């Protein structure tokens, strides 16, 4: 394995460690430990907020899977990926200031704190905590497997040692630094993603002899590669458009995004993050998928989609530059798992332990427990990722779509509709998760119902469930 590729990657890991330590030093400078550890003391500025949203959301699939599919399918997949531009402004604008104001008023540190205060129902809190712990834990494990595989393919180490390196790096800075470390490393990782994307795009265009030449090669190979309908013509407008829900507006229901919309310092920070987030998301998505497409004539015949980006980077760039660029997918994976890790840990410490087991636990105990649970969770994930059990892979399939279907209406309508109540929220969550799983199996068996992505119908059904539940049982307007 090439030493030139490794050095930038190692430097990257060292920088991330350093940030974790700096963040841990700043902890305890004010406010309560819980606010600090799980929410960074609500003091994120515009730039860090934007970057942590982009980096958390931009996962392995944006950097490895997505461009790999674009390599196979062509421009249709890049069109699909661009539905994500909406997340840059939609989540912040829609949850917006009302969510920030209310979460401060309720002293909410987690998404469940908000739901609990809004619906005044232990059942809602328990169901949400279970959903978050089960689904996000599975999603996290899957991402660790991705991180391990990436290091394995870059370094030639065995999968176990690669995963070990990955696990140690993430665990150290998340456990000691908490949310602030996560947000700060996300900012660095986001910057690496931008620079890496730009370098790789230029490298690929040069290697392909300019965009017109690449386009001609694509047309010669298969004209459908440059249409919106995919290499085999199977991408329909309905299917591609339904991704507006899965990766666009539906993201409003994802706990890891929701938690960020209550962490910013001021309304000015939010305004700035809105613009920066849109620009950065669009830039990364557009360029990474173009790289995937442009890589096809340069390096034909790659069978495994996930390998397109590593292989093309090693092909068109000098080794040290490839090392910098390949830190980008690693950054993307790390910045996703670190937030998921913290979120599952907060669900256990804050939402289960402090809510239901020992509400009056002393601060010192909470502190020990937060560090402990975060660390232990990480170790469990590491052990599971060594040989992922089928159940975990199975649950991971439902993680994002299922959580969106479960939480989008209890969050959004809970925020803006005073007649929403706990019956609606409970019915909506159960309907969302249940119908998502049911439709998933139906689609696997018979092809996509109505030709749209699995998440579409559950989001509609859970809206109906929310309205029915809220209006049918007991109508009582909520005083915000």
């Amino acid at each position: 394995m090439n030493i030139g590729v490794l050095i930038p990657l190692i430097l990257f890991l060292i920088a991330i460690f350093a940030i974790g330590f700096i963040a841990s030093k700043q902890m305890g400078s004010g406010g309560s430990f819980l606010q600090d550890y799980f929410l960074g003391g609500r003091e994120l500025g515009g730039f860090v907020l934007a970057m942590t949203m982009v980096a958390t959301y931009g996962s392995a699939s944006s950097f490895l899977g997505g461009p790999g599919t674009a390599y196979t399918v062509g421009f249709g997949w890049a069109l699909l990926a661009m539905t994500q531009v909406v997340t840059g402004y939609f989540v912040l604008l829609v949850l917006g200031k009302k969510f920030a104001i209310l979460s401060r008023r309720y002293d909410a540190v987690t998404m469940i704190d908000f739901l609990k205060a809004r619906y005044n129902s232990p059942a809602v809190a328990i169901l949400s905590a279970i959903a978050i712990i089960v689904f996000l834990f599975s999603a996290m494990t899957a991402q660790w497997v991705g991180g391990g595989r990436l290091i394995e393919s870059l370094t030639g180490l065995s999968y176990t040692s690669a995963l070990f390196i990955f696990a140690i790096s993430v665990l150290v800075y998340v456990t000691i630094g908490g949310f602030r470390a996560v947000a700060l490393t996300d900012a660095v990782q986001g910057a690496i993603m931008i620079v890496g994307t730009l370098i790789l795009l230029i490298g690929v265009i040069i290697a392909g002899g300019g965009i017109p030449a690449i386009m001609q090669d694509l047309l010669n190979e298969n004209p459908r590669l440059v249409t919106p309908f995919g290499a085999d013509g199977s991408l329909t407008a309905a299917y591609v458009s339904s991704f507006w829900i899965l990766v666009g507006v539906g993201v409003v229901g994802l706990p890891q995004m929701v938690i960020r919309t209550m962490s910013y310092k001021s309304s000015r920070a939010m305004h700035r993050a809105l613009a920066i987030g849109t620009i950065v998301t669009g830039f990364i998505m557009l360029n990474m998928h173009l790289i995937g497409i442009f890589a096809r004539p340069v390096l034909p015949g790659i069978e495994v989609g996930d390998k397109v980006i590593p292989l093309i980077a090693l092909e068109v760039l000098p080794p040290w530059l490839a090392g910098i660029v390949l830190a980008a997918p690693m950054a993307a994976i790390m910045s996703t798992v670190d937030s998921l890790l913290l979120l599952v840990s907060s669900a256990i410490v804050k939402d289960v332990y402090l809510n239901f087991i020992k509400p009056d636990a002393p601060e010192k105990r909470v502190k020990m427990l937060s560090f402990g649970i975060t660390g232990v969770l990480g170790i469990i994930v590491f052990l599971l990722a060594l040989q992922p059990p089928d159940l975990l892979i199975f649950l991971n399939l439902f993680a994002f779509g299922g959580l969106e279907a479960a939480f989008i209406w209890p969050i959004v309508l809970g925020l803006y509709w005073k007649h929403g109540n706990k019956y609606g929220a409970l019915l909506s969550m159960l309907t969302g998760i249940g119908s998502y799983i049911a439709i998933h199996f139906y689609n696997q068996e018979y092809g996509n119902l109505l030709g749209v992505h699995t998440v579409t119908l559950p989001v509609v059904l859970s809206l109906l469930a929310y309205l029915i539940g809220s209006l049918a049982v007991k109508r009582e307007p909520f005083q915000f």
Partner: protein
Amino acid sequence: MRPDTPKSPNAPQPNQYKQDPRFKTAHKEAWIGVALAIFNFIWWFGFAYGLGGRPVEEYTYILGLPDWFFWSCVVGFILMSLITVVLAKFVLTDMPLDDDPAYHPNPPNFHDQKGPNS
């Protein structure tokens, strides 16, 4: 919550029965988000399938990219970026997020790690 500080006698008391005046602005801004997403969708969809639905031979190329993709995704993205910059600078309202700022004074070293632009 901190004990009372000297400068808070006239701090507004949160009223349980009247809507927080900040919510009116917040509601308006949430609707802006929804409107923007709808506009974004129409632009994206219209150019992608309007121009992209033609036979491939009729495509023209802008900066080397197929025209439908250029208008839908490249121009669409630049347009949305410009709109959000304008929103952030001129449209959205600055407001305090704490209910009573006097009760939440920022401890002295709270601000030493802001983002570069904040």
